[in-house]
């Protein structure tokens, strides 16, 4: 079996082509693969579609999907926010979007998570009560179950997922730390190529108790260890 452990972040993202769809894990910081995103920025791929909770960088200098948007690498965003969750904080995305220079699909956060889950679970579509009777349901098939309206939503796969975890073994079995987990497990299953950056050195297979694996290594393709001088998860400078 080929080696999944890559020496550098740049090696791990070298083959991402222009026009690729890329899932970015992370919620309010934790779980964001900042080092891989920084490498993708250096690599130069453009016309990307980002799938993430937010388009990132709300008045916050940390590297996330917003850095790719700021550099003009992103054509489309699929997210639960297309305006800032903190109205006082501007983001590079907002200006581009209000000017019509970037496309976006906005959806409820649970629908985003479930669409990603469905993509990795072999479920092409599902019905949810979230968003029924709202703008987000416009043009979508609806159906009444138990007297209540539901909206049909389709699976959302991607070419790549960039996720962050605390620890991996050589097979790619992952453990996350606390709220670092968020979208990691579902994105790892939904993407064709899953790339993970880990906070701790890679351990041998067997070092993680099978009962304590959060994401089986089957879903993980590439692993890079965050070096001591890499980007650590730190509080934003608000």
């Amino acid at each position: 079996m080929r080696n999944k452990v890559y020496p550098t972040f740049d090696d791990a993202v070298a083959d991402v082509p222009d026009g690729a769809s890329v899932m970015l894990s992370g919620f309010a910081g934790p779980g964001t693969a900042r080092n891989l995103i920084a490498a993708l920025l250096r690599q130069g791929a453009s016309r990307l579609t980002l799938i993430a909770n937010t388009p990132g960088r709300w008045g916050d200098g940390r590297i996330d999907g917003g850095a790719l948007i700021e550099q003009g690498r992103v054509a489309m965003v699929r997210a639960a926010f297309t305006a800032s969750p903190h109205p006082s904080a501007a983001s590079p995305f907002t200006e581009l979007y209000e000017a019509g220079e970037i496309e976006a699909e906005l959806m409820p956060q649970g629908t985003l998570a479930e669409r990603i889950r469905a993509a990795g679970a072999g479920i092409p579509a599902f019905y949810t009560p979230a968003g029924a009777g709202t703008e987000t349901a416009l043009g979508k098939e609806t159906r009444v179950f138990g007297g209540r309206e539901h909206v049909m939503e389709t699976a959302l796969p991607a070419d790549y997922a960039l996720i962050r975890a605390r620890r991996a073994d050589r097979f790619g079995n992952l453990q996350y730390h606390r709220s670092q987990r968020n979208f990691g497990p579902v994105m790892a299953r939904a993407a064709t190529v899953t790339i993970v950056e880990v906070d701790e050195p890679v351990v041998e297979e067997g070092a993680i108790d099978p009962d304590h694996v959060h994401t089986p290594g089957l879903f993980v393709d590439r692993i890079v260890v965050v070096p001591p001088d890499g980007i650590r998860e730190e509080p934003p400078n608000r």
Partner: protein
Amino acid sequence: MTEQRPLDRQTMANRAAMEFQDGWVVNLGIGIPTLCSNFVHPDRRVIYQSENGLVNYGPLAAEGEEDPNLVNAGGQYVVEMAGMAVQDHADSFALIRGGYVDVTALGAYEAAANGDFANWKVAGARGGGIGGAMDLAVGAKNVFLLMEHTTKEGKPRLVERCALPVTARGVVTLVVTNLGLFRVAPEGFVLEEIAPGYAPSDVQAATDARLVVSPSLREFRRAG
């Protein structure tokens, strides 16, 4: 006559938290709702849940005690409690839509007499911020709104029908504003508690929807 005193945010949060019953699973939105966690009744235990997968998390972390990988849905650093659990995002929303949340307390731009509300998009903007609100609104057993009674320009936020794009339809059960507490009933907003110095006619004058005044109307309560 008592001077008219609108309620401050802490008082509004205090009153909403009085509704949280022992053992309830509670989700607090960004803004005034976050303050509710300061006021839970000492004899009751509530379980806080956040969209990013935390179940049974603890209070805000003191400076220097933050775990960089432990935040609530508002991105605030929290501390863990004995008995806390972590889920992934899809499982977290399974919990939310699955009916396990007893109450979600949210901020809002508009609340309507038919139980609709709007909190994700302002007039004229292309983008919006839905976050978890649409899932919480349809999944939680109770939807409480904590909001200012009018806009900064004095425009009523309690309306007959929402003008802004709605977050969910027919789900709001309770609204707490700086002027009072309102139950949402089939007949519309029922004014049950009122800010000091205000008459129901004063509150009606700041409200677009027609109010029903509860026969047991009383002054706004707070715990402690």
